[in-house]
């Protein structure tokens, strides 16, 4: 009973809470990092150096009036933020944060579950997240959100193709769809896939920016063009759900990229003997560190780059990333067959 119910339940609780905490502090981190990039200080008022800012933000959002526009489709309007948030959280079920730890005399694996189609699960669950945005845009009964949701659906579907194609090249290397399996195969092959699949890695990163609506692909919520985009009409906790979903998705993309390309919980250069002293740092620390680097990149890019235009974004997706991803896939297949 403990093995079957209690431990998974505990894991779910821990992961969900850690995620939500991580998401709120991700917001603070972004504000801080961007502020430093722009020679500002960022939030400084709530707590020392503003570390309690997320608490204040959460309180504010919860206490704010929750407004539903008069002619909105109320039913869908309420559903949309939930549809946006749930997939972002459900994905964490298959993310391997680490290998196994011994705790209270038990061997506990640092992932909620390891299913044999783990990667497909990630892709398919995140693909449902687009409904939140589309339905939010539609149900607000407002023109700017509608435009944003049209942009979003086209953008997310387009970049999903490129991302999925890069994932297939990784699967070709690992021979398994299981997230844990992909990490262990990187360990057994002695190399992170970022080094033997650099093209896929870059495409995945660019696609990841687009999938999470981050700059320079933040068109669905381009404040300067669409007055905030699909969540223009949302306020209070419902807006907060969209906001959290975006950051949760960023963490998902970072975690998946870490797992697939940066060896998950493995230490750097897992097959180099004289670096084995790095092994004293637990695996989950490496995982968090690598994900953090990714998240930092997300923020850095946002602070630096202007925004693409809609047609340029689609052109980049369809005429550059997808052909490159296909070429990379074919090349990977040929090399794999030739070596076998």
């Amino acid at each position: 009973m403990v093995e079957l119910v209690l431990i998974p339940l505990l894991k779910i609780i821990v992961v969900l809470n850690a995620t939500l905490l991580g998401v709120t502090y991700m917001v603070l981190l972004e504000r801080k990092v961007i502020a430093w990039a722009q020679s500002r200080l960022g939030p400084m008022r709530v707590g020392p150096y503003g570390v309690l800012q997320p608490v204040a933000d959460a309180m504010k959002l919860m206490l704010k009036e929750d407004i539903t526009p008069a002619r909105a489709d109320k039913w869908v309007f309420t559903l949309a933020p939930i549809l946006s948030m749930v997939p972002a959280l459900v994905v964490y079920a298959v993310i391997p944060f680490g290998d196994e730890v011994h705790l209270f005399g038990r061997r506990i694996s640092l992932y909620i579950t390891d299913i044999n189609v783990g990667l497909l699960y990630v892709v398919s669950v995140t693909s449902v997240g687009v409904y939140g945005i589309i339905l939010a845009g539609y149900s607000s009964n407002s023109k700017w959100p509608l435009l944003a949701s049209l942009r979003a659906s086209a953008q997310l579907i387009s970049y999903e193709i490129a991302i999925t194609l890069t994932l297939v090249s990784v699967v070709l290397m690992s021979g398994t769809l299981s997230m844990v399996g992909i990490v262990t195969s990187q360990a057994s092959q002695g190399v992170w896939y970022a080094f033997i699949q650099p093209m896929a890695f870059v495409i995945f990163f660019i696609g990841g920016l687009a999938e999470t609506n981050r700059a320079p692909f933040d068109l669905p919520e381009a404040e300067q063009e669409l007055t905030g985009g699909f969540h223009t009409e949302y306020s209070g906790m419902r807006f907060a759900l969209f906001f959290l979903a975006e950051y949760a998705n960023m963490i998902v993309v970072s975690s998946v990229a870490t797992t697939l390309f940066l060896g998950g919980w493995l230490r750097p250069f897992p097959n180099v003997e004289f670096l084995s002293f790095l092994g004293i740092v637990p695996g989950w620390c490496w995982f968090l560190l690598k994900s953090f680097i990714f998240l930092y990149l997300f923020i850095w890019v946002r602070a630096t780059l202007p925004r693409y235009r809609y047609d340029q974004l689609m052109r980049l997706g369809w005429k550059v990333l997808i052909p490159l991803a296909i070429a990379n896939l074919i090349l990977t297949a040929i090399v794999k067959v030739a070596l076998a």
Partner: protein
Amino acid sequence: MAEAIAFYVLAACILGFAVLVVTAKNPVHSVVFLVLDFLCVAALYVTLGAEFVAAIQVLVYAGGIVVLYLFVVMLVNVKRPPEAFRAGGRHATLGLALAGAVLVEAAAIAVWSRLSPAAPASAAQTLPVSGNTEQVGWLLYTSYLVPFEVASMLLLVAMVGAIVLARKES
């Protein structure tokens, strides 16, 4: 026992959502119910041990095709007159006829599988690979290669056709 409960609950959900898809007055609501329907179908696949098919079902249908449905429904702004919801008419007859045909087909399959019950299971067991994904892949690229290729050609032709139709005269 648990499997049976899961099956009946999911089947009820599937049928319920299917009914809501056709009865919802707002086309966008219909599409939302369709998504939920597809998610339930995916869950049904999981209970059958076909995780790969379930994931593909969600990825392709719920995450891809229905998004496009929604896109179209939102764009063309269908406002059906109230008469459209009344029973009768040519469409209702056609619908009933199609439903009857599907029913007959399902019955035929049921009867046929009763007559030779072990055939499909043994096919899977004789495959040289194990694992859900591998088996699907193996079957697609060996026994069902020709239908698979024909289907992909058909999709390609449909795609080209759609582009030709949608392209504006320049």
